[in-house]
């Protein structure tokens, strides 16, 4: 039987000193799938992404990409397969947008290498694809939050990975930009066949753009599946520890909103 599993997380655990952050996490993501990681603050979403990218080393368990154990691969080999879009990147030195994007191709330049003319043209092509070519020579630090996020996505694409990990890419953006960025992620993922694992705070955004959702709570996977499977009042109330109502619209989409009783309690 052909194995379509691109990313397999097999029973991983992680602790910061004595404090257990992740506890026996198990799930897999299929090729081309957009998978959303949801859960309350401090449930271990970002730590899980860092473990997958091997910025943090798991205490136990295995992470496999294409069936290959990541712990047996070099830093360069991992970077060739997995790209990361951080939640926010503030840098001290004023690199330009094109320099930032070119850094994504580091593994292809070799040990002493620097980008060549072709790399520069390829990076420009990605900027054009994402419609930010006008930012090419602008200083990254001078950009708005939304523009910075698109530049980081461009850098991740220039890395030419098979898996993209996005850590709350919309957390600092206004309503319009949240929509633009998520549409962009969906489009790119579909066109390039990228496997995408994305952490999000908003269940509605996750439900709208992700093929599958994984709910984390207190370092464990408590629910996983499609939006239809996850969007149940009891499920969401147990995770977010608040009263929730699910609105059904004419278009067939379900929307999660706080229950009026919850709002009253908060006001009181």
């Amino acid at each position: 039987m052909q194995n379509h599993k691109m990313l397999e997380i097999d029973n991983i655990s992680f602790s910061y000193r004595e404090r257990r952050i992740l506890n026996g996490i198990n799930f897999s993501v299929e090729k081309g799938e957009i998978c959303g990681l949801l859960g309350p603050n401090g449930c271990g979403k970002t730590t899980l992404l860092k473990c997958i990218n091997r910025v943090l080393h798991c205490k136990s368990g295995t992470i496999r990409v294409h069936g290959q154990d990541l712990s047996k691969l070099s830093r360069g080999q991992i970077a060739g397969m997995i790209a990361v879009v951080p939640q926010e990147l503030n840098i001290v030195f004023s690199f330009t947008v094109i320099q930032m994007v070119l850094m994504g191709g580091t593994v292809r330049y070799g040990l002493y290498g620097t980008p060549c003319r072709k790399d520069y043209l390829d990076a420009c092509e990605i900027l054009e694809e994402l419609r930010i070519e006008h930012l090419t020579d602008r200083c990254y630090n001078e950009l708005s939050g939304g523009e910075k996020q698109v530049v980081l996505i461009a850098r991740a694409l220039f890395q030419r990975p098979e898996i993209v990990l996005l850590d709350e890419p919309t957390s600092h953006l206004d309503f319009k930009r949240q929509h633009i960025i998520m549409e962009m992620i969906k489009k790119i993922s579909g066109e390039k066949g990228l496997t995408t694992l994305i952490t999000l705070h908003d269940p509605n955004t996750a439900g709208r753009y992700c093929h599958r959702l994984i709910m984390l709570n207190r370092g464990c996977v408590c629910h996983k599946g499609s939006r239809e499977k996850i969007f149940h009042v009891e499920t969401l109330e147990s995770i977010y520890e608040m009263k929730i109502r699910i609105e059904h619209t004419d278009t067939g989409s379900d929307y999660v909103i706080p229950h009026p009783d919850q709002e009253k309690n908060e006001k009181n």
Partner: protein
Amino acid sequence: MKRISPFIIITILLMAGIVFALTVGQYHINLLTLREILILKLSGKTPGDDLMTPAMVLWSVRLPRVLIALLAGAALSVGGVAFQGIMRNPLVAPSFIGVTHGAVFGASIAIIFFSKSAFSIETSAFIWAVSAVLMVYVVGGRGINTLTTLVIAGVIISSFFQAAGSFLKYIADPYEELPSIVFWMMGGLNNVQWIHVGRASVIILTGITVIYAFRWKLNLMALGDEDALSMGVNVKSARILFMLFSTLIVAASSSSCGIIMWVDLIVAHISRLIVGPDHNRLIPFAAILGAFFLLMTDTIVRSLPGGEIPVSIITSFIGAPLLGYLLMKQNKQWSEE
């Protein structure tokens, strides 16, 4: 109108500076004589009686001094650029995190307890400068927030060696040993000989070449550890490599001409303002600007009418106010934003 490349300007300035430094000083050599001596030397001929004295001044005193000024200036500046890159802090420099005070301690030990020969002083300074950085790495190179702990460890080790150096000054013989320690601490190129040029050039040119070879990795290190890791850089090995080679070149410079303050910090900072943060351009530019800066300051100190003063006094007089000005300018920009 097309802007002239800053590389062309600084290279022309450096060339003019070298000619200027070779001709001026307590013994003036005019341009024609300089040309004549260089042609004779390069063609292997011995200068005539009329050119004997200027040839001796030029070949035995001035040329090695100019070459060491160029090498040390380039080494300090590239060391500053590399340290600022890996520490992601434009106000960090080798002289601020233990290298300089380690070298002073090493030199003082040799002056007080060993043979006082130039070789033993330089070797001891070199070994202790490298040891200081290794200690910084051992103390601060662990934990989650490695970068902050490294900078703190640098301050701790630097203060420790400063205290140990002060103790050695306290117990040093005030007539024989103390003046040597003080003079060495203030930095100077007046005792430079061809042997220094040979030794320093091998280490400094090798070190700069290695740092330049890995320049792209330094760009990623300047973004942050997590970013560099996720783009395929082995951060731990890269940090050790850059710290080791930066320390080697700075220690090689310190062991040849004592402690020269501010060059590493100020040249790296100014170079970044002129050519930007990409180390592909930054490293060569800082090397040329640093060479030019130290060459000019050394030419000033040896041409003063009242006699030579330690070069570190001039570099500090220029460096400190210049950095203060840049800081005020930057603060003004921030408050306007």
